[in-house]
């Protein structure tokens, strides 16, 4: 019962995964079915006709022999040819499957909540899904394993038909020990017993070895991950080369790699030993089975129950049967293992996003009159024991230039992430024109903001595509935004101008400096032309001149819009009328620069820390 249950569960999961396959590529499963039938047929065709040819030759019926040989050759050619064409299609589909699956996972990943990255359960789900998709051949391997399962099943059934015919053959003589052995019932019982014994043996062995293999596979994954890190992320990271040399870290890095490789060695050895054992035990078992079957085939031949030519036919069929039945057991357990490994993938693809999305559309206003207010908002990161933001109340007034300052970890960036709804408040709520922002359609709400994050990111595409974030961009608008962001003069010096590709490993791609990248990401925000512009530390990587240039252009960039400016450079506060000062997750002070200086509190301390050097 228990075994039946596990069998049922395995294939339920298996079929669930095959549905994903079907969803990605409709043809792949039928193609594999045809391949299974054709490849099963091949050896039996050869066996049957060869037997006929031999028998005709023995009876000197040469014409007949030639005739059978001809049919055999033609049949094999047709089956083989068909299968080659089927394989051509299958291989393409199989490759497509892997690619499309990986894209599907990433697409889903991009739809997930922002905070999955903070190592939450969703990110783990994504990682597990990706690993499942890549490791062990992924979903494609499940398809082939199912195909094998079917193939061996077909082969075993065919072989059983041959065995029954073989057993039923009656000897010419009825005396002597050989005649008794050739008796259909005796032959049948002995062969079934031998097969069952062999099956028991191979099953026992295969379960044992499988358990070892699975344990090794798990450790293997960890070890590969470790070695992969030290080689891929450290050794091949050229930038690390500086740190390693100047700090004399060679020993540390090298020994760490050595350590992991030394730890891995016994594992690889045990993998070798395990497969060696499997070869020996399978060899022993198949050897015993062969002796019994050959013995009986010989008995049948010498007693005249079957012809000499049939010797190779039946011996071959038994060999096929033996292979098929032991591989059947193996494929079944392989399907079991694969479905277990792949289950996170199915779970992940069926996952529902936790973020609540409303249906209200955002009123499109040409005058950009939008007002956002925080109502007693608190936010706590999952797993943390204290609030990052604590009962924050703030109104973001229209067309205002707002600066947000505070020490590292005071909650500035979290405030922004709540504002643009990358996070939802743990307590309290945020309203847009008086309505809770969660009630708006999410994508429409996002369209209100043009944000330049501190850790902005540019993608491996042309500059223009990076700015417009689509393939069909408005070249004029791109140029205008580059101009506003103060980077057009640089882009025009490039041979391909706005079509220059940013670092993607190809020859003509360029690497941008931090400052250039930052300006291009500002242009991206401008291209979006959203009513709110948010700049999070936009000048951290810039030299004083470029910084001053951004300050200078700031007015022009955010004209007509509401803007929020976060910076550690206190100088940025000078051109914002309104300054929010954060400390320990709360808004400590708010007001204009002069007023805050007079307060001689948090703001004044921050200001003076920097201003003293310029006094």
């Amino acid at each position, binding site marked *: 019962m228990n075994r039946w249950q596990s069998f049922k569960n395995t294939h339920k999961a298996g079929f669930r995964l095959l549905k994903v396959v079907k969803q990605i590529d409709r043809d792949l499963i039928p193609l594999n079915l045809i391949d299974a039938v054709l490849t099963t047929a091949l050896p039996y065709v050869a066996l049957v006709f*060869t037997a006929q040819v031999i028998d005709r*030759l*023995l009876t000197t019926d040469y014409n007949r*022999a*030639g005739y059978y*040989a001809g049919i055999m050759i*033609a049949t*094999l050619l047709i089956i083989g040819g068909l299968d*080659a064409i089927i*394989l*051509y299609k299958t291989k393409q589909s199989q*490759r497509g499957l892997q690619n499309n699956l990986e894209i599907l996972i*990433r697409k889903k*990943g*991009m739809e997930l909540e*922002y905070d999955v*990255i903070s190592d939450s359960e969703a990110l783990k789900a994504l990682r597990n899904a990706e690993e499942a998709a890549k490791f062990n051949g992924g979903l494609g391997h499940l398809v082939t394993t199912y195909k094998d399962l079917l193939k061996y099943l077909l082969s075993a059934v065919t072989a059983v038909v041959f065995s029954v015919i073989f057993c039923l053959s009656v000897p010419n003589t009825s005396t002597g020990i*050989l005649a008794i052995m050739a008796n259909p019932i005796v032959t049948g019982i002995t062969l079934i017993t031998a097969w069952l014994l062999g099956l028991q043996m191979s099953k026992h062995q295969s379960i044992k070895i499988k358990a070892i293999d699975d344990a090794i596979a798990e450790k293997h994954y960890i070890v590969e991950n*470790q070695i992969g890190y030290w*080689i891929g992320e450290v050794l*091949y990271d*050229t930038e690390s080369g500086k740190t390693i040399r*100047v700090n*004399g*870290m*060679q*020993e*540390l890095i090298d020994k*760490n790699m*050595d350590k992991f490789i030394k730890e891995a060695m016994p594992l690889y*050895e045990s993998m*070798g030993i395990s497969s*060696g054992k499997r*070869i*020996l035990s399978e*060899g022993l078992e198949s*050897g015993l089975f062969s002796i019994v079957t050959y013995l009986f085939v*010989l008995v049948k031949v010498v007693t005249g129950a079957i012809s*000499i030519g049939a010797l190779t036919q039946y011996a071959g069929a038994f060999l096929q049967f033996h292979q098929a039945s032991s591989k059947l057991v193996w494929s079944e357990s392989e399907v079991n293992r694969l479905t277990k490994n792949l289950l996170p993938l199915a779970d992940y693809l069926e996952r529902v996003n936790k973020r609540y999305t409303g249906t209200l559309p955002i009123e499109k206003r040409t005058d950009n009159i939008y007002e956002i207010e925080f109502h007693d908002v608190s936010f706590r990161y999952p797993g943390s024991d204290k609030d990052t933001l604590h009962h924050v109340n703030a109104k973001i007034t229209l067309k205002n230039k707002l600066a947000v300052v*505070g020490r590292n970890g005071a909650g500035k960036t979290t405030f922004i*992430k709540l504002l643009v709804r990358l996070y939802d408040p743990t307590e309290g709520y945020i309203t847009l024109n008086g309505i809770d922002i969660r009630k708006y359609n999410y994508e429409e709400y*996002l369209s209100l903001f043009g944000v330049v*994050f501190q*850790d*902005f*990111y540019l993608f*491996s595409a042309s500059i223009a595509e990076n700015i417009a*974030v689509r393939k069909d961009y408005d070249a004029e608008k791109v140029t205008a935004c580059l101009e506003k962001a103060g980077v057009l003069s640089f882009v025009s010096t490039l041979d391909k101008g706005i079509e220059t590709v940013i670092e993607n*490993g190809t020859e003509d791609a360029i690497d941008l400096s931090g*400052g250039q990248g930052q300006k291009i990401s500002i242009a*991206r925000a401008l291209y979006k032309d959203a009513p709110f512009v948010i700049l999070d530390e936009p000048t951290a990587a810039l*030299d004083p*001149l470029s910084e*001053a240039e951004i300050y200078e252009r700031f007015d022009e960039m955010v004209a007509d819009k509401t803007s929020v400016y976060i910076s550690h450079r206190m100088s940025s506060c*000078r*051109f914002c009328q309104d300054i929010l000062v954060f400390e320990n997750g709360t808004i400590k002070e708010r007001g204009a620069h002069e007023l805050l200086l007079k307060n001689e509190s948090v703001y004044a301390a921050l200001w003076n820390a920097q201003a*003293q*050097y*310029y*006094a």
Partner: protein
Amino acid sequence: MAADSKSSKQKHDRKQKRKKQSNPHKYSVISNYIYATKLYHDGVGKKYHLHDLLAILFGVASPFIAMAFPSFAVAQLQSDRAHETIFIFIIGYVLILKGLSVATAYIGNVQVMDYFLGRITTASPMRRHILEMNFEALERKEGQEKVRAADECVFHGNEHGIEAFLSAFPKVVLNVLGFLLYSLIVIKISPWLFVFMFVTAIVFSALSLIQGNYWNKMYKSMHVLYMRRKKSFHETMTVDARGDIILYQMKDWLCEKLNAVAKAYADVYRKYFRLETSTNLIILLINALRDGAVYFILIRQMTLGQIGISELLLMVGVVAGYSAWMQQLFVAVQQIAANAYTVSQYRDFLAYGNEPENSITQLSLEKGQHEIKLENVSFRYDGAEQDVLTDINLTIRPGEKVALVGANGAGKTTLVKLISGLYAPTRGRITIDGIDMTQISREQYYKAFSVVFQDLKIYAATVAQNVSCSLEPDREKVVESLKKAGLWEKIASLSSGIDADMTHHLSENGVLLSGGETQKLMLARALYQDAPILILDEPTAALDPIAESEMYETYSTFSLDKTSLFISHRLSSTRFCDRVCFMKSGQLTEIGTHEDLISLSGDYAQMFNIQAQYYKEEFESNREVSAYEPLAVL
């Protein structure tokens, strides 16, 4: 004109020099075989030759015995021997057959381990070389390409690189032997047939050769696609891009990009699969024709009484297996040809970019104060059109603190790389206490420096190892450095303290540090090393004003007895330095104290004032700012 021809001659000279240094084509296949065998011999041990030998023996015998079985069995059954004898012969034959096939599989399995072990061994010298070779050589495009090529030799699986190269040699021997054996049998029965067989075998081999060549070509051409794919996938889920992707709703655009790469891949593969399928179909057809002819000839011979049934069966078996030997022989030869070059590239990489042998290996740079002198130093990247740095002259006096400022791209970071010994000057020289830096061994030279680079690297090792940069840290000193750097409170709060693993790469619970904390860890690293020369490249970019101010003070006390160089965009940092160097377009244009340079009213003063104006009481609007003329920005 004269200058032109001179520079082109220089370029030519440099090219010549590089050619002499490294040329992967100079290694022959034989020399690669000897080289690789020696590597494996050292890594795996003598036993691996024995395993090769056994594999050859079993590899020839096993298919032969299997092929001859029907012929043997029919011959026995036709004979007038006693049933018992026939039984013993045939069952005995089956046993030998089984035994051989198990032995072949078993030895094959042992060989997989041998070759794997050998391949892993070859990774070791490569690793060491990457860690120890000249940095500039490693960093340049040529070096990166060589690393990639060496990686291809070692890490691209067992069907590629050194393992594929070396494991093909026993296969050649095996298949030559098998081919000879089968040829002898065919010739004995029908010389005619031999000619026919030989020709079809050649055709098959040629076809698989074409297919293999195409695969290799394709494999190489796919590298660019692979890089594009890797990057495109990476960026969809990278932490830094996450906010941008959501806020700019880039999902569809990025998926479109992924699909484009996938399609490019599919196109390449479809072409290959098409070739493969047509080859297979041709082989099938030729096979059918050949088998038809063979049956025809053999049955005819039988009708004429020239051969018996067991000869016929043997021949059918030989024919079926014949072309396989030659095909596999070609595959093996091709495997050697295709992978010999990767071994050459591996050797070439190991010979490339070695640090020069130095006459002075011991230099007491360990303690005390040192003078660094740059004399007409220029630097140009390999193959670049113009200098990054031109004629830099600077003497940093013992114990002096120098601030290095200038616009982005002025060459500050390159200068740091030169002074810290990562690069050597293209022209001019750098001396430490009067000794030319190129005469000091790199290891000794680096020991004199604590450098905090812009890209802050933390590795998946313990806190103590990350601070000390060594395997066996001085634990007290680690704690002390962390305390001074202001990071002790954070580390002490961890359950495993300084033994806690860092980053999430290898440990789920690894310590993650914020930007400010990472800066502090770098400071702790510098404090631990306590080297006599300190270089800081933008150490305060991620810090809030108060933390920044504190960091200045810590460094200021820490560098009291050291020679030090600060690079920062915050010009305020220049206030606690003895002298300021202003760089512009690869040249040192202004040197002097802060006050000197302010009264000079040059570029430095302008830059300082632009930043300072915002902090002045009288700042009212940004109209003043508009008055400034952009310098060579970016």
